[in-house]
């Protein structure tokens, strides 16, 4: 199907098309870019940096950083020995606690000479 030919009659549009054709707009833009090139470079750098950070963050969230723990230090762990209590421990304690010093119980002292005589020392 043939494309119908469009005729531009709007004078403002015609003027703009002419400006394009003559390169007037192009020159204006290039002049502006040249004038503000350092701003543009800085803006691009910032955009690149922010983009890199966003990408890096999203990547880091996908792959969480491994947790580093300190290497195991060899420590002497006491072996848990199962203590077996003998049923005769009480008897041993009884023998051990037995008083061996005689006389036990102590023999009290009594006066067997109770009288009213004068005691001669």
């Amino acid at each position: 199907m043939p494309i119908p030919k469009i005729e531009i009659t709007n004078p403002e549009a015609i003027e703009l098309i002419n400006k394009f054709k003559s390169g007037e707009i192009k020159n204006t833009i290039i002049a502006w870019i040249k004038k503000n090139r350092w701003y543009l470079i800085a803006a691009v750098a910032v955009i690149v940096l922010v983009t890199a950070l966003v990408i890096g963050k999203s990547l880091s969230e996908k792959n969480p950083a491994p947790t580093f723990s300190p290497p195991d230090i060899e420590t002497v762990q006491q072996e848990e020995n199962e203590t077996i209590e003998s049923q005769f421990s009480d008897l041993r304690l009884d023998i051990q606690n037995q008083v061996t010093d005689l006389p036990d119980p102590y023999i009290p002292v009594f006066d067997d000479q109770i009288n009213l005589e004068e005691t001669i020392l």
Partner: protein
Amino acid sequence: MKSFAKIVLSFIFVFLIFPMKPVLADYRSDYEYQYNQYRQNYIEYSVLKKDFLNNPTLDNQQKAVLVAKETLKARDLAKASYAAYLLSLIQEKKISYHPINLHIVSLQAAHKYFLSEAQKSQSIITSTDLKAFSEEYSKSVLTHNRSFRTGVIANKIADLVRFQLDGKEAFNTILPKLASPFSTSLADRINELQLLGNRIDNDVDNLATKVSSEEDMDNIDNETYFTNKTEAVRDIQKLQLKWIDGLIDIDINYAHS
């Protein structure tokens, strides 16, 4: 009337819930009480005797005789309660060991003698009676005083015998728990234990025989009388500890496996 019945019933209920335990004075507390009484009387007697000797009036003499009478009674009751205390200590071991029977009989005789003397002293009226009583007493009391010394050792021997009996019972308890036939090491340990047990029995017998020997009785009043007995008891205790350690070793390593 109804409220009275309620009170009575409440008392009965309380007594049923909390039955009163009978308060029984043991032989030790009785002896301590009697000995304390003797000490208090003796202080008073010493003071009044001194007063009388410094100022020998009839009144002072009478006062001193009265307190002396009380002191004699307290002394002999204290001695009787000490003999009863020793007897109770021996009896609570629940043993039947012939070599100490002689000392038990001596203690029983001493207990009876001191009770009798406590009563006899109450017939004293004059200072002459007091003098005669004390002279007679000092002659007859020696044997009974000595029974305290032998009684104390008999009590210690009873302790040692009780441990031997308990040890043998423990040994008999453990034997069925051991896996048979016995391994060589276990058989050796059991053999060692039996030999050691026999040795301790012999040592206890020797000590008991020595205490009853004539030679020992001659030295009974010596200050060193208890020294060699203490050493003997200590040696036997060491062997008994060694024996029980051996039994515990078998119990832990062989009976529990």
